[in-house]
Structures are given as C-alpha cells and as structure tokens.
C-alpha cells in the first residue's frame, strides 16, 4: 500500500512538472524618471509565484509558459499589469500614484481620499514650510489656507502666534486650534520663561513636516469633539518610501534685520520739543544737550541703532529615508540658529527625528515616530515690550541726549542734562548685563501597533507622549535697571510638562457592490500634567558666581507648584458611506469627559454629519468646462475645553501674611459650569475647471452657545481677579472662503502657478449674560447685537486749527476742546461758542461697530514660476478691514513726561491756521492722549512674506558627481509690508491669545526681515 502511495505521489509530481514548464524572465522596475524601484512585488498573475525587486530594481522570476502577464506593485506607485511577450528581459516602468486623485487627507484617526472628502479641510504641503527662516512652523501657515488667520504678534523670538480658524469661537476661552502631530496632541502656548514669551511649537522642526491639514468645519473637526471648536491642525511628519536610501542635506544662512522702524526724536529735536512743552506750560526748560562722556562731542544717541543689529542665522538639515517592502524609515538631524536683530535675542534648536514602520507579519504592523529637540532661547533679561527696560520700550523712550558709555567706558546711568527725570534704564546696558535664558528639551513620541483582524478590519493601538523639561535661568545685574534696587537678582525655574494619550481604534473598510463603507470606533484617554520649581537669590555677593546659594546671595527662597493637571476621557465613532463613488455621507460622534467640570456636567457629546454629491460623475453631466464638481454640506457640534484645570471647583490656596500662614479663596468655583458648544453649518463645493484649475468655495455659519467666560464681575463681589468662570451668552460667526489654484502655464520648460485664497468673517455677539450686560476688554466691548470685540472709544475730533487745542466729540456729538492752561474747572469748553462745559469722560465712549481687530477679508496669494532650471516664488499675505489701536504711538506722544517721543510730535500745532492732528505742545496736558480714536488706525496690509529664487543644476552635470539633485536659492522673508498703519506692525497684538482686547499694539518688537541663501542637496 505504502508503495503505491509513493508511486502515486511521484506520478502527480511528474504531472505537475510536466504541466509547469517554466522559463525565467529577468527585468528591471523603474519609475518614470528611470530611478530603480526596489522592494516592488512582482507576481505572476493568477498564481502565487512572486518575487521582489532588489536595490537596483532588478528581479528574476520563473514563470510558467502559460502565464500571460505579471502584476507589479509597490507602495506609492500605481499597480501595473504587464503582458509577458516572447522576450526574457523586461523593462517595467511604474507610474507614481496620481497625487491629485489619490491624495489622502488625515482626518483624526483615519485617512480619507481627498476626492471622497465630505468636510472642509485645507492642506498645506511641507514644501511650503521647509527651508524658510521661520522660528516655528505655525508662522509659515500665514496666508496659506483660506479662513485660517495666522498672525505673529511681534518680532520677538517666542512671541505668540495667534491662529484663528474662521474667526473667534469664544469670548474668553482659548480660540487656538487643537494641534495634533502624528496623533500626539501637542503642548502649545507659552512654556513659562520668566520675562520672555516662548512658543512651544518652536520645538517642532519645520523641515520634518510632510503636510499640515486644517480641519475647519464641524464634520472634519468633530472627531476631536471637545477640543475642536477652534479647528484642528493635523501635522503629518515625513516618512520613508520603499526603495534605495535617499539622503538630503538642506542648509541656509543669512541675516535678519528689523522689517520696519518707528522713528523717535534725536538729541537736538528732543531737547527742543521738551523745552517747548515746558515753556508753553509756563515752566522752566528742563532738557539740555551736552557732552556727558567727555569725548568732546555733544551726545546724541540713536538707541534703536545701538540695540538692533544684523543677526546671523543658519540652518542645517540632514535627512535619510528609504525602506524595503516591509520597513520604511525617515531619520533627520536638524540644527537651526537664529540671531534676532535685537542684541542678545537668539534661538538655537537641535532636533533629531526617527520615523519607522515595519510590517512584522502580513497582519501586524508596528511603528514609532519620535522627535527629540533641544531649544535654547536667549531672551531679553529685563523683559519685553512695554516693560521699562524692555525692547522696544527702552530704545524708543530713553533720552537721546545722553551717551551709551561714560568717560570711563562704563555704561552711562545718569540723566544727562535732563532735570525733569523720567528715566528709562540704559537700554544697551540692561540687554547686555541681564539675561533670561531658557533651555528646553522636548520629546514627542508615538508608538503604535496595528493588527488586521479580518479583511478590512484593523485594530490600532497608539500611545503618545509629549514631554518637555525646561530650565530658565534669569539674572539682573546689580549695576543697572531693576537689578539696582535688589542688589542683583538671580532666578531659575525648572518646568516639567507631560501629556500622555492612549487611543485604541477599530477601523473597518469594505466595499460591496456599489457601496463603500467605513466604520470607526475608538477610545482615547489624555492626561496633562505640568509642574514647576522656582528659586531665587537676592543681594548678590560675587557677581561672577551665579549659582543660587545662600552662600552667595543675601536672601534665597523658592517654591514648587503645579501648573497643569487635567484629563480627558473620550469615546468616538463614525461611519462613512459612499454609493457608486457619487454619493458620500459621513456621521461622527465623540463624547468627552473633562476633569475640570463638576461630576454632573462632565460629559459632552459632539455629533456631526456631512454629505457630498459628485455631480460631475452623473451621466447627465456633460460640461467640458467643469470636469469635476462636488457639492458638500455638513453640520456638527464641537466644544472647547481650553478652560483651565479646575474652573468648577471652589478652592482655597495657601498664602502667607508674611510669617503667618494664611488661606485665601483662589477660585470661587461654579459647579453649574458646562460645556461650551459650537454648532457649525458648512456648505461648499470642490470644482476642477478645464485642465486643473482647482476651486474650493465654502460658506459657513457657526454659533457658539453657553460660552465659557471668565466673566468680569464687580469688585464688590470679592472674587480673585474680579472674575468668575460662567456659561454666558452666545456669538455667531459666518463667512465665505475661496481657494483657487491655477496652473496658468504648464509647459515643459515654463510653468506658472497661482494659488489664491481669501476669506471673509463676521462675528457677532448674540447675547451675553442674563441681564444683557456689556463685557469690557481694554478698548473693546462685547455687546449683544454688535460685532465681536468692537472698539469702544471716545471720538477724537482733531486739533482746533485756531488754537491748537485737542477736540473730541461727546456722546451726543458735541465738539469739546481742552485747554490745560486754564484753571481746573474751566479747562473744557465747547468748540462752537467757547462756553465752559463738562469734561469728556469715559461716558463719552461709543461703540465703533465697524471697527474690530478682526479682518473682514484676508488670505494669501502665492505664485511660482519655473523656467528650465530656474524657479521663482512669491508668497503674499493680505488682510483688509481690521483695526489696530496704536497704544505705542499713544505712549510716544505723551506730554506728561520727559521720555523720548515719536517724530509725530514734530507736527504739533504752533500757530493759528496750522492743520495738524497733534495739538499744541503743553507739558502736563494729558487729555489729548487719552484712549480715543486718535490712535485707532486701519490695519490693512499686504505683506510679501517670502520671495525665493532658485536654480537647480542640470541632471547631466550632477550625474558625474553621483548627486541626485542640487538646488541653490536665495530668499527674503518678510520682504516688505504695504500698509498705512503707523505703528510697529498692523498685526501687533499685545494681549496674547485673547478674543476680546485683540488688536492693541503696545510696544511690540518689529518683525524681522531675513535674507538667506541656501542649498538643497539630494544624494
């Protein structure tokens, strides 16, 4: 029996051998440019016989004579079926996946093919971010996506970058979008350097970014539910592609300088203005020019010139990427050194990244994406902005008629010939002697495993961490400024922040007949925690020893504390459905529990739904002009958890009454506090006209209710900071957005592409509290029925040309003028008849409904040209319709003190008939400079953000040197800004990330203009 079996087997084998007569086919797989495609799978169609290509793209495969064709596939390339002819060698060319067709968009926990998108998402490619001398990647988004307003509030390193997706969605809760990088919710905002702002996003290496997706409407963003009402930014970092390793080296170097300057008086002008002010007021002259350093020359110092410089910047990035069929990797090392134009202000960043994914088995994939960064920020030791020793306050207001150094070469500290002292500490001295340095180490990491349970069903588990450890070292020298009174001060703050999150998702995608179905279910837990450790030393003994120890300081002390302590538990799910690829619909829901709410109001539910119809796929669609057209509509609800750690909990905190321990209320609490909800409706269409003109148009309307507001309350209530966190009122925003991409010319040798985007936004206040009360924020007001944060000011009526007096309109429109030389009771008179009248006061403020800090129309225009090896690009950003309150100028024309002043004051009225906006110089007159429309200016601007010209060396030349590509380029960042605004910058914003009180320009450092020259090298 056994024998017969053996025989049978033999026979079978023989027959098989007979059947499977084979021949060997060799070949090479390459891409369209002829580069080898390694790791591509080559399979005989209809069999399991297959192989993969080697590093050179070569393969060798035995095929049965009966075989008709080979199936060749590789990641990132379109699958190709290749007929086997008679020959034994084959050259196979694979086409890269059609980018526009197959472009995928990252939407939270899954990706969607761009054509199947039902929500409103804008995508910014990494190429628009890399190689530019931005201090953080968010700055590069300005003008790049319709409806996304990105404003850098000043040129100081670390200055906050405000991002508003479709305007403000809240009154006092944060309106910054949630930023998620490779699934990791990022720590944002200020890291807590002592006297300098920092931007946590500066730790991200911009050159590692593959793309940034902005999820704008509710259907796109709602998968992040409670944190999504400000929109969501999804950052995807670069990853490797199977194939031979690619090595790139990118570098640039250059310098930066202030993009704009405000001019202040020089020595002789200053002396003349001050003394005119004094004598007009019947006072003795108080300023004199002189030689206070004994060099024989009358001192005349341009402090801006002394404090600003050409700062050197350079950047280096090495990237290596590649992979096999199963494993891909991307690794990079980056170093960036940016010296700002302000002396001592500098940021250095070194970043390393490794992104690695591997298929362990056919059904199990793991991956890790991690980044380690070290960022050192050398801040201004004496503070920034409007601080007495800050920049630009110091250089703008210091006496110009005193020297920088005295006769001995030491910093000059005195008042020179100025007898009415109002000293600004020597700006050069405070910058050089004091420091505020932060050393920050950040580790952002995600690891995941993904299991294919069944066909189309994937279980993914990802653990994310964002950790940063910072150390701030701050010092005030005893010789000058604030350090003088303290006999020297040293302070250090060690901060430790960590966010972890863990999510598990089930993704099921299937296709049956004409139906496409995708289902997502998941859970995520997020915990944020941050602590600080602060110590200080006062009364320095030996200035060369800076370590804080009782041995070297008269007094030392310190404290520990917890800055952040909150968590979020989330469950979410979604269904995507498509029918015949024409009718698309999706539904998502997320429920979040935030630790900061009371137990009963903790859970919030955020559903959204959307639908799209690809009309152009219908048989009736015959238009040749519009080749692709998709209509979209969505509605959904998002929330806002940007409300601090324990807003609902009434708490006492330990305090001290000097040596006696005390307890004080630190939060009044509000156990009724509940989720703020934004309902957003969006309708839009995506259209392709002719050969590649892409048009995306959206209209949205969103309404936020139960606004969580740090409600300003009367001092007589007696809560800390005069606020209580309450759900109050609602606001409504609406707007249009358009994005256009036009390949104007698309020839082999010459290409010209224009991208344009624009957006309108109007945000109205629907209601405030139960009493409909106004909410005030500096110069702005929140009043039901009016535009969000409309300016609320006294109306300036110019200078009376007959007598040089400042005039204003009272609340009834009656013009009143002010004469400081008159007795106190008779200073205000009516312009019409000169009769004594009541004073212009705060009661004369009016709501300027059309004048808000939010632009009415804003966006960007980018153009690129390619001619043979040359490329040229322009990035333009524009903003129209916003207003900025020029508090800087207000301070620089004050007549109550003797600090240096703006050259504007030279226009002061001197004689009857003078037409001017600057009243007669009169020392002590403080009414013309009160907060009025005199200082409210249009903030329209067009900014050339970037001009770049490049030359790519011809391939032939490079081949000999075995270089894949080499490009050299030169660029200007912030080349110029066209604006009528007279202050620092039309985007200046002194109040940080706020919604009311935006648009106040208070001594913000100018933006930097940076010139660089760079090289992109690929091996």
């Amino acid at each position: 029996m056994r024998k017969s079996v053996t025989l049978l087997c033999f026979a079978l084998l023989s027959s098989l051998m007979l059947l499977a007569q084979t021949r060997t086919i060799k070949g090479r797989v390459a891409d369209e440019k002829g580069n080898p495609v390694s790791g591509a799978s080559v399979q005989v169609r209809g069999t399991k016989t297959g192989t993969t290509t080697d590093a050179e793209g070569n393969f060798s495969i035995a095929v049965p004579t009966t075989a008709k064709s080979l199936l060749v596939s590789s990641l990132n390339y379109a699958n190709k079926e290749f007929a086997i002819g008679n020959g034994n060698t084959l050259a196979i060319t694979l086409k890269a996946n059609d980018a526009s067709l197959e472009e995928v968009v990252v939407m939270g926990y899954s990706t969607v093919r761009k054509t199947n998108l039902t929500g409103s998402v804008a995508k910014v490619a990494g190429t628009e971010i890399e190689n530019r001398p931005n201090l953080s990647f968010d700055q590069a988004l300005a003008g790049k996506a319709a409806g996304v307003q990105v404003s850098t509030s000043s040129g100081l390193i670390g200055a906050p970058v405000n991002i508003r997706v479709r305007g403000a969605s809240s009154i006092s809760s944060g309106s910054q979008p949630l930023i998620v990088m490779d699934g990791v919710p990022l720590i944002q905002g200020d890291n807590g350097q002592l006297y300098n702002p920092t931007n946590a996003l500066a730790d991200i290496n911009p050159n590692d970014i593959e793309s940034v997706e902005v999820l704008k409407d509710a259907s796109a963003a709602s998968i992040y539910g409670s944190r999504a009402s400000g929109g969501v930014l999804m950052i995807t970092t670069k990853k490797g592609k199977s194939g031979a390793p690619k090595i790139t080296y990118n570098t640039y170097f250059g310098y930066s300088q202030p993009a704009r300057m405000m001019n202040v008086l020089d020595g002789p002008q200053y002396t003349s203005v001050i003394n005119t002010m004094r004598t007009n007021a019947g006072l003795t002259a108080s300023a004199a020019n002189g030689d206070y350093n004994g060099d024989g020359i009358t001192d005349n110092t341009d402090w801006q010139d002394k404090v600003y410089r050409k700062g050197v910047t350079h950047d280096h990035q090495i990237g290596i990427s590649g992979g096999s069929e199963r494993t891909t990797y991307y690794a990079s090392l980056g170093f960036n050194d940016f010296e700002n134009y302000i002396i001592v202000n500098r940021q250095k960043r070194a970043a390393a990244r490794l992104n690695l994914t591997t298929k362990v088995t056919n059904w199990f994939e793991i991956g890790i994406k991690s980044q380690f960064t070290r960022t050192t920020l050398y801040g201004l030791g004496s503070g920034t902005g409007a601080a007495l020793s800050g920049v630009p306050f110091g250089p703008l207001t210091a006496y110009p008629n005193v020297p920088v150094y005295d006769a001995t070469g030491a910093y000059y500290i005195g008042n020179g010939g100025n007898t009415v002292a109002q000293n600004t500490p020597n700006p050069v001295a405070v910058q050089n002697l004091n420091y505020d340095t932060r050393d920050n180490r950040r580790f952002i990491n995600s690891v995941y495993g993904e299991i294919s349970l069944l066909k189309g069903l994937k279980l993914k588990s990802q653990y994310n961490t964002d950790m940063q450890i910072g150390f701030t070292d701050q010092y005030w020298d005893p010789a000058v400024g604030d350090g003088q009174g303290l006999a020297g001060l040293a302070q250090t703050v060690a901060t430790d922040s960590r966010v972890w999150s863990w999510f598990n998702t089930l993704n099921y995608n299937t296709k049956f007949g004409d139906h496409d179905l995708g289902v997502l279910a998941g859970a995520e837990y997020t915990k944020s925690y941050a602590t600080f450790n602060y110590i200080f030393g006062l009364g320095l003994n030996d200035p060369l020893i800076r370590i804080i120890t009782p041995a070297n300081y008269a007094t030392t002390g310190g404290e520990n504390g917890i800055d952040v302590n909150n968590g979020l538990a989330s469950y979410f799910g979604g269904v995507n459905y498509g029918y015949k690829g024409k009718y698309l619909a999706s539904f998502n829901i997320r429920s979040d529990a935030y630790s900061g709410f009371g137990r009963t109001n903790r859970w919030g539910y955020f559903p959204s739904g959307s639908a799209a119809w690809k009309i152009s796929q219908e048989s009736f669609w015959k238009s040749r002009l519009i080749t692709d057209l998709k209509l979209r509509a969505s509605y959904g609800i998002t929330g806002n958890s940007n409300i601090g750690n324990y807003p609902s909990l009434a708490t006492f905190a330990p305090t001290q009454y000097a040596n006696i321990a005390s307890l004080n209320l630190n939060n009044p609490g509000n156990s009724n506090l509940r989720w703020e909800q934004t309902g957003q409706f969006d309708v839009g269409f995506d259209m392709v006209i002719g050969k590649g003109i892409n048009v995306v148009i959206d209209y949205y309307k969103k309404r936020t209710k139960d606004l969580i507001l740090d409600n300003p309350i009367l001092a007589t209530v007696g809560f800390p900071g005069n606020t209580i966190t309450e759900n109050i009122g609602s606001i409504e925003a609406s707007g249009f957005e358009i994005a256009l991409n036009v390949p104007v010319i698309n020839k082999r040798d010459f290409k010209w592409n224009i991208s344009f985007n624009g957006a309108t936004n109007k945000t109205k206040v629907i209601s405030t509290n139960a009493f409909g009360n106004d909410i005030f924020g500096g110069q702005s007001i929140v009043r039901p029925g009016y535009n969000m944060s409309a300016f609320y000011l006294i109306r300036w009526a110019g200078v009376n040309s007959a007598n040089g007096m400042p005039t204003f309109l009272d609340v009834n429109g009656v013009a009143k003028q002010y004469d400081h030389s008159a007795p106190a009771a008779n200073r205000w008179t009516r312009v019409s008849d000169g009769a004594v009248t009541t004073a212009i006061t705060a009661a004369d403020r009016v709501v300027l409904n059309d004048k808000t800090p939010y632009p009415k129309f804003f966006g960007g225009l980018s153009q690129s040209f390619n001619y043979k090896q040359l490329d040229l690009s322009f990035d333009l950003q524009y903003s129209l319709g916003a207003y900025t309150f020029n508090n800087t100028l207000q301070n620089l024309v004050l007549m109550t003190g003797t600090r240096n002043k703006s050259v504007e004051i030279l226009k002061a009225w001197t004689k009857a008939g003078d037409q001017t906006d600057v009243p007669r110089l009169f020392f002590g007159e403080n009414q013309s400079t009160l907060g009025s429309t005199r200082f409210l200016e249009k903030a329209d601007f067009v900014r050339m953000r970037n001009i770049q010209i490049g030359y790519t060396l011809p391939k032939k030349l490079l081949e000999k040197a075995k270089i894949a590509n080499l490009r050299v380029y030169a660029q200007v960042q912030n080349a110029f800004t066209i604006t009528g605004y007279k202050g620092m910058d039309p985007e200046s914003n002194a109040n940080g990330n706020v919604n009311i009180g935006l648009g106040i320009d208070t001594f913000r450092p100018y933006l930097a203009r940076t010139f660089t020259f760079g090289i992109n090298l690929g091996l």
Partner: protein
Amino acid sequence: MKKNIFNSFILAGVLLASCQKEVTEIVPPDRLSSDLAFSTAQKAETSVMGAYNALQSADYLSGRALVYIDLLGNDIYDRTNFFGDLPRFNLLSNAGFAGGLWNAGYISIATANRAIAGLAANPGVVTAAKAKELTAECLFIRAVSSFYLVNFFAHPYNFTAGATHLGIPIVTENFTSNDPAANKPRSTVAQVYTAIISDLTAALADLPAIYGTAASYASKTRATKAAAAALLARVHLYKGDYANAKSVSLNVINGQYGTFALNASPAGAFGPANYQTAESIWSIPNNTTDNPNTNNALPQHYFPGGRGDLAISTNFRDIATNPYFAVDDRRRNLIISGTTSATASSFFTNKYPDIATRSDWAPILRYAEVLLTYAEASAQVATGIDADAVAKLNLVRDRARVGAPQYTIASFATKTDLINAILGERRIELAFEGHRFWDIMRVKGTVTNKFDGDGVTVLPAQAFGANKSILPIPQAEVDKSAGILVQNTGY
C-alpha cells in the same frame, strides 16, 4: 478560545474604566476645596489670616496705599515720574492706581466677610470664645479697609454738612456667586463712617489684648484691642468728633489695652529688628519671601538704594515751609541723600531701609499717632489752651528735640496756635507713613507748595474738596455696574 476572548474583553473593560477614572477624577493636590476651609480649628484661623493677607496686597496697605497718601500731599515729589499724573491730581478714570486700590480694598472686605460667614456656618469647630475673637479680627479688617477706601474715593467727612455726599458701597454680606445684590450704590460718607465705627466698636469688645506676649509677632500684626482703639480714635478724629477721639485715644494711653511707649530714638520703630517694639501698635508685616516686590515695596520707592522714586521736597525740609521742623530735630537724621550720580542731589527718608530683602513693615498704627490724636482732640475739645494736650505733644516732641526747652501752656497764644503745633508735629512725626494729604484735607486745608517731579516746578495749589482731590471710581467698575456706581465729579 471563547473563554479567552471573553476574558480579554473583561480585561480590556477594566483597563479602560481605570484609565477613564485616572484622567477624569483629579483632586488638586495644591488647593483646598472651599468646603474644607473652615472645617478644623487650624484651618478656620488660617482662613481668617487670609483677610490680613488681602490687606497686605502690594496695591494696598503693605505699600502703595501709604505712598499715594503722601504723594498727594506736599512733602515728597515723584522724582522719577513713576506715578505719572497721580501727584498732579490729574488722573484719568481708568488709572491703574485707583483700580488697584479699589480691588484690593474690596477683596479685603470680601475676605473678611467670607471668614465671618465661614465661622458662623461651622459652629463648634472652634470654641465660642475663639469664634468671637476671630470674628472680631474680621470686623477690624473690614473697618480698616472701608476707612482707607472711603478716604481715597470720597471727599472728607466734613465736605458736606452731615456728610451726606457720596461715599463707597458698604458690603457686609458674603457672596458665593455673581450675585446681583453685590451691585450696590455708594452709601453716604456718614453711613460709611457709622458702619466703620460700629465694626470697630464691636471688634474692640471681643478682640484679645495680646497674642501670647505683648511683643509677639502676632500681637503687632494681628488685630488687638489697642489696634481697634487706635484706629477708632483716628476715625473719630477724621470725622471731627473730637470728644470721642479724645476718650478712645486716652484709653490706649492709659494702658487699658496694654502698655505702649515711645522708643528712645525717633528712628527706633523703623528698620529690621525694630518692628515689634512697644511703639508699634499694628503694622502690616513683610518678609523676604512675601513682600510687594521691586515695583511696589516701600523701600523700593523711598530708599535711594532702591528705585528712589520718592524724594523729600524742600517744602518739608525747609523750616520756612515746615515751621516746627527745627534744625536740631533728631528726625532730620532720618533724612539721607542719595549715593548715585542720579540721586546724589536729592533727599530721601530712611524709614524703610531694608532694600536688600524689601521686608520693611508698613507702619499703620504707631503709639506716637495715638498721642498726637489725643493731643489734637483734647486741644479741640478744651475751651482754652489744654495742658494735657501740651503734655502729650511734648512726649512726642521731646525725644526729637532733646536740647530744646519743652512746650508749656505759655508757649501758645491761642488754642489755634496749639492745634497748629500739634498738626505740625504730626506732619513731621508721621511723615512718609501715609498721613499727610488726609491730615491736610480733614481740616479743610489746601495743598500748596507742592513740587513736580523735578523738585523745582511748583504744581497748582489743590484746594479742599477740589474735584480731582479724590480718586476716580475705577472706570471698569462703573461700566460693570451699569450705572449703579456713580463716578466722582470731574472724571
């Protein structure tokens, strides 16, 4: 297999539930739930201390409040123009100086009210006697704060007959939410004084004379019978109720509330190590780690080694304009000149010398004031020249003028001469301790010979009751009150 799948689901469920709990159930380790603030004897007492801590605000009694009163007066000038239009009586209604005072004042009152309510709501946590004592401390704090606020934001008591002019809102209840009842109109000055006197009288009855020992830290920084009486005497004096001012201050002098005495030297109550002498009745303490910091501390403003913002004007130094300030007065030793090129030509007070740690205590109630209050009240009440008033005046004057002959009744031609001498002595003795401007105003005086920041330019005279001689109600508060809070005329 089935069992394994089942078990892994159970395991996953347990894991997820514990994760959910970990991220949502967060108890702050650095704070105390308000329910617990009065739950033990120790916590209740510490919460009462919170009301003192509120008074100690940098914007209030640990520095700025005293500075403003002196800046509005004519004995110092704002050398560095740090205080802008404040000393020029030319503030705008949104001035931060006024806002800071108002907020700190009402936070102090609210903190005291909160503690009173907390003690009442948790009976038995402390003994009834202790609860009375702690409540009395709160009443004292509320009275102190109301007194400073009403004098900053309203015209003096005698501005109208019967003090019917606008004072400040009186707040005696504890608010736990944004209660519309907190939007109170301004009571009249008379009503405010009545409330202050009632609080102080109640406090005086229940407060302890000392905490531990007479010179203990707490006895000098917490409310005592003597502190309540000394303040009550001042309130009566400001009100022009000389009879009561006299009787209350006499109780302090007679030792009814403990023994107080002048130190041997006029400088004896100032500077480190001198804060707890028998001369101090009540001060706001500061220490190295808890003080008003670089821009607010008394030594930073007053001491030439600090910012040296506030220089002593010639109006104070010259005997022509300060007639009772003799050349041999030992209090001249408290005047020092600056040491840097910028300050060398100016003069400063040495009452707050602790620039190194900024720990100088703010002297609020000092025994010398009680003596002078008694002298003034007694002199006012008397029909002729009051011998007792002269005697108390001598107590203060003698230690500063060891070589000079004592005053006798014969030194004064009229009662007015005596009162002027007492007011003159008060100006010198209590200089730079937050008295000057109000001492001028309460007797319907005019601020003259006041210098601008250069120390040379003379500012316009400021008459009693002039519009801007009081501070503006902070514009933000007027706005928030929707018309309930009436702004002071002129702002």
